[in-house]
């Protein structure tokens, strides 16, 4: 009897092999014609804007905020799944607990909303 994850591993190997081979083989079959302008970053034909060597320089802080919110709600989601599986066994106790839990996260959510963390401009 196989471990239940074996098929997933097989699929992973197959998919990895396919994408790795096609990506790594590309430079071998395609033509190679050197052109300095071709290797510049594409900016619709104008001279590329100067950039720091690593990363892209500054990014709007709203993206970090979205990432933080994602973590908050992802954790909420992760707790909701096991609850949903066993909800019938927990009954009223489970309902009250999960309502309190959602309310707790709801406070953080309301705070962020009120402070304008969900607004984009």
């Amino acid at each position, binding site marked *: 009897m196989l471990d239940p994850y074996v098929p997933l591993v097989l699929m992973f190997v197959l998919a990895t092999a396919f994408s790795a081979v096609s990506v790594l083989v*590309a430079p071998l079959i*395609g033509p190679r014609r050197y052109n300095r302008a071709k290797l510049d970053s594409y900016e619709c034909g104008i001279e590329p804007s100067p950039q720091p060597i690593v990363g892209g320089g500054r990014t709007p802080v709203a993206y970090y905020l979205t990432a933080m919110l994602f973590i908050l709600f992802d954790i909420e989601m992760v707790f909701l799944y096991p609850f949903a599986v066993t909800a019938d066994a927990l009954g009223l106790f*489970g309902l009250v607990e999960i309502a309190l839990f*959602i309310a707790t996260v709801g406070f953080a959510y309301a705070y962020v909303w009120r402070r304008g963390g969900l607004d*984009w401009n």
Partner: protein
Amino acid sequence: MTTTAVLAQAQQRLSNAELLADDPLWLTLIKVVVLFIVVMLTLALLVWAERRVLGRLQNRPGPNRAGPFGMLQSIADALKLSLKEDIRPARADKWVYIMAPIIGGIPPFLAMAVMPFGGEVTMFGVQTALQVVDLPVGVLVVLACSSVGVYSIVLAGWSSGSPYPLLGALRSAAQVISYEIAMGLSIVGVVLFAGSLSTADIAAAQSGGWFAWILPISFVIYLISMVGETNRAPFDLPEAESELVGGFHTEYTSLKFLMFFLAEYANMVVVSAFATTLFLGGGAVPWPLSAIADNALSSGYWPLLWFGLKTALLIFGFIWARAALPRLRYDQFMKFGWKVLVPLNLVWIVAVTALRVLRNAEGVTSGQRIVIIGVAVAVLVLGSLLLPGRQVADEEPQVPLAGSGYPLPPLDLTVPTPPRQRRTVRARAEQPREAVTASGKEAGDGNA
């Protein structure tokens, strides 16, 4: 059919997990390879179908040269792409730049492996199920795969060393994670009713009624967020051509670009197949046909057909949305995800849980249930009345017009009167037309 009868029938049948546990390795290997090939062919067909359908919707034929009805178009495109030059920009981070498309190509196939295409069949003399693997955490595998897909986008944008891909990647990541919340929360209701995270169990739990009927709000939220999750129109902001050129894959060419392209379409197939599993009963035959011969069309290899049809219908919805709806503005899109879908989802989850607890509670008569539900609805309505209304901003934030130091154009702009020569030309152009219509009318009158 009563509930006990359904339960008895379910107990007679082995679950997919039990069936798959006895699979020999060679059979698993065959299934994996067949699924992989089927997904690849589906992708080739899907790219062609999308262009054809879009063409018809826009009153033009679409690709119709390569093969019958142009069906080989995507294969021709893939061949052509593979023979193109592979360019790596000078400022790109070499290894991350190469890794990003590889990472993007893997997760959709993994997610397809847990889809329950159907129940018990006999393959090469071995009793097994129409599914590659049934895990007790199948739903989490699909969600994890869609999360890993974000890495490919972010790394591609970051490593390109170019502003457009970077902005596209940031947008895309923010969008995918925002809509993943909505998507994940909409699945909670399904898990609640199915009592399991295994995809096969969820599909089997819908024999009494599809979750799309039982949980309509979850279904609608899932449908919206799956479009946001896959970066498709009308939510294809990361690839907004008018703003960001091509988005995160601007700097990619040749087969590396093809991998991103494949990943996008494969993700479409995955979310559609997942929606079929969660809400549309998996491989179960739709209602009027399910009456034939005591649901005989849901056994054997038949479920493949129904699963495929339901998935195809959802994918058609994707294409239709792309043809019919204009692209949203980014702030509207994020606002919709965070301020509408997420709170709606949370309220819906609590409501569904409460209803379920109430239904399962002992010693509560149906009259009392109605009273309790009525009280809860009344409290909600009263609570919503207490919410502050929309605040109207007294003063729009304005840029100071005078004294800012910037050169300003004249602000009392009116349409200037055209020079005399053009005015007379226009007048001459309008006059004869009136004369013609007038004379035509007279002629008509004369005939009458």
